[in-house]
């Protein structure tokens, strides 16, 4: 078990920040980069019946956003588990505390 002040919690937070920053970099590149700043350059390429820049702006970037969130969820769940800060650790004790508290029985 760890608490929120432990060095382990600090390490967890550091890894979390690193993950979030790398995912946000991709988020920035696919939307602001490919679909806005470099849209004209990418429009030189065809992607099926689309100009590629246009496709990124109206389709591709949205698909990337969805993937980014799911990658984040997957990686964070693993990270929570690795540092033992996930909610499986406290589910039992918290519920027990809850049911032992006579006030909570409505």
């Amino acid at each position, binding site marked *: 078990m*760890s608490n*929120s*002040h432990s060095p382990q*919690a600090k390490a*967890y*937070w550091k890894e*979390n920040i690193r993950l*979030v920053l790398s*995912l*946000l970099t991709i*988020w920035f590149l696919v*939307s*602001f980069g490919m*679909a*806005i*700043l470099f*849209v004209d350059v990418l*429009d030189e390429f065809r*992607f*099926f*019946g*689309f*100009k590629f820049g*246009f*496709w990124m*702006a*109206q*389709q591709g*970037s*949205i*698909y990337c*956003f*969805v993937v*980014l*969130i*799911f990658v*984040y*969820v997957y990686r*964070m*769940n693993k990270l*929570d588990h690795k540092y033992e*800060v*996930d*909610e499986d*650790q*406290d*589910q039992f*004790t*918290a*519920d027990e*505390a*809850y049911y032992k*508290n006579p*006030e*909570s029985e409505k």
Partner: protein
Amino acid sequence: MNMDVQTLTFIFVGVTFFIYIGIAIWSRAGTTDDFYVAGGGVPPLANGMATAADWMSAASFISMAGIISFVGLDGAVYLMGWTGGYVLLALLLAPYLRKFGKYTVPDFVGDRYYSDFARLVAVVCVLFVSFTYVAGQMRGVGIVFSRFLEVEINTGVYIGMGIVFFYAVLGGMKGITYTQVAQYCVLIFAFLIPAIFISMLMTGNPVPQMGFGSTLTDGSNIYLLDKLDQLSVELGFGAYTAGNKSTIDIFFITAALMVGTAGLPHVIVRFFTVPKVRDARISAGYALVFIAILYTTAPALASFARVNLINTVNNAEYKTTPPWFKNWEDTNLIAWVDKNKDGKIQYSSGNAFTGKPIFLDARGSEGERTISNSINTNSNELYIDRDIMVLANPEIADLPDWVIALVAAGGLAAALSTAAGLLLVISTSISHDLLKKILLKNITDKQELVFARLSAAIAIVIAGYFGIHPPGFVAQVVAFAFGLAASSFFPVILMGIFSKRMNKEGAIFGMITGLAFTASYIIFFKFINPSFNSSENWWFGISPEGIGTLGMLFNFLVAWLVSRGTAPPPQEIKDMVDDIRIPQGAGASYHHLKNL
């Protein structure tokens, strides 16, 4: 059996309304906890769907594809802006706010910055942003009712108010959540069916997302988008797949919409309703999937509608135009002036006349409605309100009547679900943030619940008033809602989680700077000096729609500077920040909350 569109629409709308009311009765709220956050027990998948319905408003369902249809590539600001914000929400805000585990955004701001003044500033922003939004939803309800059910707009708004009143006041967040799940299903079905039909008809591909990158089935064998570019250029509009706005403006508008989305209180509050931090993360993912289904279909629909519209109306004789043309003309959303007196509709770039059409009673020589606007000298003879594209699309493409009826029910579902979510946020911020936390700290849970219901009822009446007497500035104030959310809430919440050093002085000065800057820029260009509102006069070429991004940067800068010069926050606040950074204990904080 042969039923007309109107009967079918009555049936579809009636059945869906019946379902919404049934759900409301089944999921009544018994406590403030139920009323504010649905008891914190919403499964993530249901929360994702409810979030999607909450988020996708009349603007997303009715207006967005229409706007894209007229601006082409530049429409991507809405597509990316209104989806990319969910990445920020999922990675930076939702899990931590869930761990914090209270009811509202002002709750977080007030507690984290140990200041009732900060809480009050947040309450004012919440009310402003939410009322702005609600006015737009009620207009959407009015449009659908007046066109498809041929009742007075006012009657339509009263019916809409009645339904929302029933499930929002009775059911609170619990009622709203499960109604929104049903409304999502109705609206997505209603959006996809016509898109699939039209995609099949025009390109032979049943998947609209692929259809608009395919070749046309009219025998020409050219790509749909190439054809559209060619038609647009011929009529003087410029290529559909090329942009008109400057890159810097597109950049800033997209950023303001993304950040604003992540900062909108009625979206944030949905993540308070799930049991765990892990559920908050995954439900943001589900929400974006459900939103993306509509948001990737919309640009396809936009290009289909554009091709269809140009082919149907340009150089068509007015007398032989299909019934939808005259129906929408009767609803004041289409107008035609026969400038060259040939009885045909010439459609090209430029405004046919100045402003919105002002119709006269008399009919013209072809039977068209005459207008009193001053006519422009260009060759364009047609005025089309962008809002009709989605609603008229099934008629333009000649789809079966039941599809048209379905679209009407979908438009209502989109407008009502968002209106309900907003009304709940408004009532919560009055009963909880303003009364319980600032003015009447001693009220019991039961009394607070009565106040919550009362303020929901009052908010509905005010929203209804806006629906019946729509303020002329609704379209302008949408920029406001996002600009304010981007320049106030987002930075304050983000710093509250990611900086332990950020203190009350920094947050308050930051929020006020962001708000004051953004608001005055928008007010100057939109209200005080609208004739000045063009790119030469904008700062760095940033339009009022995108200025929230700059306001956000100022907020960050001022907050950082002020916090370095003032005392750090007390130890218990630092402990609180440490605590919200780890998921462990979210269940406990929820149970703890229940006993308050």
